């Protein structure tokens, strides 16, 4: 394992240098050129406030965005080795067990994510410290420490999703699809079961993307570093987001390593027929999107339905890589659409209090 890790580090030295340079450049430019404070109160703050300098955003967005991007891009680099038949022949013929290979790739990937993030983050912090600012600087190390486990979990989740596919394109589609899966469900549920009290403690659907925890942490620390008060709701939604992120991340790592042995070299470049693939998320998305269509305005609803069915058809064509779909694909499309329409009708009745 040591030799494998050493080789993995050596192999990734150049990409590591490139990612670190790009990350530092972007964060450095943003932090050097952005205004760090207002000299008049920002909108929403009354003129009665006696302080003449008001902190602007503490510029957590740049390093945070780079962290999330790296967590999505690096799994594609690290786990695409088995998605070409020739690559699978090489790596699976070498004297290394598949679990060890994936573990080494995961460790290498984490280095590719965390080292550039760390370098850029602290460079950005240094720039801010050297400039005139009105921030609560102790918030920066805390935010960094909070995002480390969040980033590690996000990387694990995306690594698992990407590696379910048999091709790079399908892997990227899988990552995007499952990123939107939970938010779509909660969007439907929040429409159907909306109540002012409930929205106070559960997250908004958009926060349920896999990087939702990082976004929420960024919001909280942006306010606290800027010496603004953090709402109770912001902190309370962490009670949802932390377990979801932990389940996704830990599940991702466990799934990645426990299913290593079952990965087949002969699946390289083949259709993505896994349960994590098109045959699950296509019907799911069709049903969920259909459930969000408002059928009260029938004209508009018909247009949306037509677009959805065409989109679903295109999705299945992308899955099969052919226009010759199977009977079960069409059936799956139609059943999912029907379920979605039913859910939409049910949802509108629930939200209007008819049940």
């Amino acid at each position: 394992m040591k030799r494998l890790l050493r080789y993995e580090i050596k192999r990734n030295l150049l990409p590591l240098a490139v990612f670190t340079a790009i990350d530092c450049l972007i964060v450095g430019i943003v932090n050097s050129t952005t205004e760090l404070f207002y000299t008049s109160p920002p909108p929403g703050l009354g003129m009665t406030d006696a302080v003449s300098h008001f902190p602007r955003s503490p510029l957590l967005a740049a390093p945070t965005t780079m962290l999330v991007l790296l967590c999505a891009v690096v799994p594609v680099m690290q786990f695409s080795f088995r998605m070409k038949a020739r690559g699978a022949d090489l790596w699976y013929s070498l004297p290394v067990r598949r679990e060890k290979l994936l573990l080494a790739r995961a460790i290498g990937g984490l280095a590719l994510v965390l080292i550039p993030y760390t370098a850029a983050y602290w460079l950005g912090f240094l720039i801010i410290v050297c400039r005139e600012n009105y921030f609560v600087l102790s918030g920066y190390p805390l935010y960094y420490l909070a995002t480390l486990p969040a980033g590690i979990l996000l990387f694990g989740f995306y690594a698992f999703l990407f590696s379910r596919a048999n091709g790079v394109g399908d892997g990227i589609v899988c990552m995007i699809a499952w990123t939107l899966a939970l938010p779509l469900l909660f969007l439907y549920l929040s429409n159907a079961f909306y109540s002012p009290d409930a929205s106070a403690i559960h997250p908004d659907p958009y926060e349920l993307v896999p990087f939702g925890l990082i976004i929420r942490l960024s919001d909280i620390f942006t306010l606290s570093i800027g010496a603004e008060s953090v709402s109770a709701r912001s902190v309370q939604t962490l009670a949802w987001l932390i377990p979801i992120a932990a389940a996704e991340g830990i599940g991702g790592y466990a799934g990645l390593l426990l299913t290593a042995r079952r990965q087949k070299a002969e699946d390289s470049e083949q259709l993505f027929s896994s349960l994590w693939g098109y045959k699950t998320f296509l019907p799911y998305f069709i049903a969920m999107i259909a459930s969000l269509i408002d059928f009260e305005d029938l004209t508009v609803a018909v247009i949306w339905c037509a677009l959805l069915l065409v989109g679903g058809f295109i999705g299945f064509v992308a899955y099969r890589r052919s226009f010759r779909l199977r009977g079960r694909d069409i059936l799956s499309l139609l059943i999912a659409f029907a379920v979605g329409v039913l859910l939409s009708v049910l949802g509108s009745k629930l939200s209007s209090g008819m049940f």
Partner: protein
Amino acid sequence: MIELKNVHKSFGQKRVLGGIGLRIPDGSVFGLVGINGAGKSTLLRLLAGVLRADEGSILFDGEEIFENERKKRTLFLLPDDPFYTTGTTAEKLIELYGTFYDFDKNVFAEYARKFSIRRKDPVRNFSKGMKRQLFIALALACKPKYLLLDEAFDGLDPLARLEFKRGLLSLNEEYGCTAVISSHSLRELEDICSDFALLDGGMIADGGGIQNALDNICKFQIALPHEAKREDFPFECLSFEATGRVAKIVVRGDREETVKKIETLSPLFIEEIPVDFEELFLCEVKARGYLQ
């Protein structure tokens, strides 16, 4: 020893190998032959632990090979189209294989010199033959106990083929390396292989020692006093060709007995022609209906 016991492999609904049983003794150079799509590459990938057999077992010195890290350190697979990334150079490949094998840089240097391999140039700029030479040099430098080669001679010029055969035989003699070679260059296989297996329809159709197999078949050119027809030869022939009064037959069995059978036809002359491995292969595939 490599042992395959009742090995089955299918890809979806397509059965590729259906019940392969094979023993490859230590120190042998074993040729794997068959028509395109016979399952040779699949068998090599199963032996290398790249694929997992659906049924049966593949044993190296009594141990299952699949996911056996320790045993796989003694094994090297050279596929017909080896993988490399865009910027890979020979140096980077040495690093890769040096991580997993006991890589002998002196052996590589020797073959790099013989094949004129440019170590720092990107492999993507090499010709097909040069890539093959590079990977052969890497394979030989790893000094594996078991060397699995898919389309070993593909793309190699005659000189490179000679160097490769010498290198392989040297590895075999000095280190007792067992090589399993799949190739369509049957003349080359005949030079170096001691044993062979002919794959057909996912099964081993023929096999054993090459010399035994060649000793067991004879080819005769016979001139008859009349137009030669197949019916004139009332015994089993692997192959029959006739041009006018001259017939060429390939027969499996005892040479003396075959000559006696031919003499009963009162031929004008009988001439025995040497049979090579390629001819044996062609006769076998003809007998199986692949060649009309």
